[in-house]
C-alpha cells in the first residue's frame, strides 16, 4: 500500500505496519528525538507500537532540534 512520509510517497509491502515499525523501516536513529504526526494528529509516544497505518496515510517526522546560544 501507499503512504506519504515527510511529503514523499512510499510503498509498504506489509500490512499491519505500526508507527514503531515505520520508524525502524525508515532507519530513524533516535526515535526519542522524533515527534510523529499521523494524518494531522500528533500521536503519543506510547501509542507508536499500537497505531497501525492504512493506505494513503500521511506521516511527518518532526525532529527535536535545539541549537542557538552557547
Amino acid at each position, binding site marked *: 500500500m501507499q503512504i506519504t512520509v*515527510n*511529503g514523499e510517497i512510499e510503498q509498504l509491502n506489509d500490512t499491519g505496519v505500526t508507527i514503531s515499525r515505520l520508524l525502524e523501516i525508515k532507519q530513524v536513529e*533516535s526515535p*526519542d*528525538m522524533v*515527534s510523529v*504526526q499521523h494524518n*494531522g*494528529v*500528533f500521536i*503519543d509516544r506510547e501509542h507508536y507500537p499500537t497505531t497501525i497505518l492504512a493506505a494513503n496515510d500521511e506521516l*511527518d517526522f*518532526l*525532529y*527535536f*532540534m*535545539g*541549537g*542557538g*546560544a*552557547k
Partner: protein
Amino acid sequence: MINLTDNQLDRYSRHILLQEVGVEGQEMLLGGKILIIGAGGLGAPAAVYLAAAGVGTIGIVDNDHVEISNLQRQITHFTKDINAAKVDSAAEKMRAINPDVKVNTYQQYINAGNIRELIREYDFVIDGVDNFPTKFLINDACVMEGIPFSHGGILRFDGQTMTVVPGKSACYRCSFRQPPPPNAVPTCSQAGVLGAVAGMLGTIQATEALKYLTKTGELLTDSLLTFDAKKMNFRKINLKRQDNCPLCGGKPSVTELIDAPQAACGLKTAQ
C-alpha cells in the same frame, strides 16, 4: 507616532521603498520591542538584522561569556570579545550598527521565576536557546502571556523554525509535547553545526519579527519550516492546534511554569 528625520529617511530608504513597509512600517519598527533570548548562533544574526532594521527597542538575554568556539557562527562576537559577557558584546555591535536602537541587556539565565515579567515588556520574542527545557519554558510563558514568538533550532546542516501566535496558531507543545529524555539528546562531542546554517535560521527568525511588527505578509504559523542545507531542500510541514495539547488544548495539564533541569542540548561545545 515617530517622525522620521532626514537621516532616518536615508538610513531606512530600502525599507521605505517597499510598498508593504513604507514610512509607516518603518515607524512601526522604530516603535517596536523585540526580546532575543540567547546571544548565540541564532540570536547573534537576528540581533544584527533587527538592529540594522531599526527596531526601536531590542532586549537580549544570555548569561554566558564569549568562548573561542563561539566565533565560527556567533557573528556579534569578535576575537577581541573572548571572555566578555555575550550580552555586552552583542549590544556593542548592535549600537555601532544603529544608534537609533535602544538595547536592553539581561546577563542572566531565564527561568520559571523571571521569564513572564521579562517577556511582558516586549511585542515579540525570538527563541535562540540551545536546550529543550528552556525552549519549552519560552513556549509556555509566551502562550500564557499571549506574546508571539519564533521558535528556532539547528543541528549539523539542518534547521527548523515556526512562529507561534498564542491562542491562534499551533504552539510548540502541540507538536512536541514535552522535552525529549536527556539521554536521547546528542552529546556535545557528537553534534556540530555549519556556521552559516545558524545565520540562515536566525535571519528567518528576524524576518518573522519584522513581518510581525510591520503587519506584513503571512507569518510562519501553523507550519514548521525545516531545511537540510546539505541538499538545500526546504519543506513546510502543515500543523494545526491540537485539542489534546497539554498547554493550549481543551484540558491543559501544563498550567504553571516549571524549571526542569537538564544538561544543555549537546550543542554546548559544538554549536
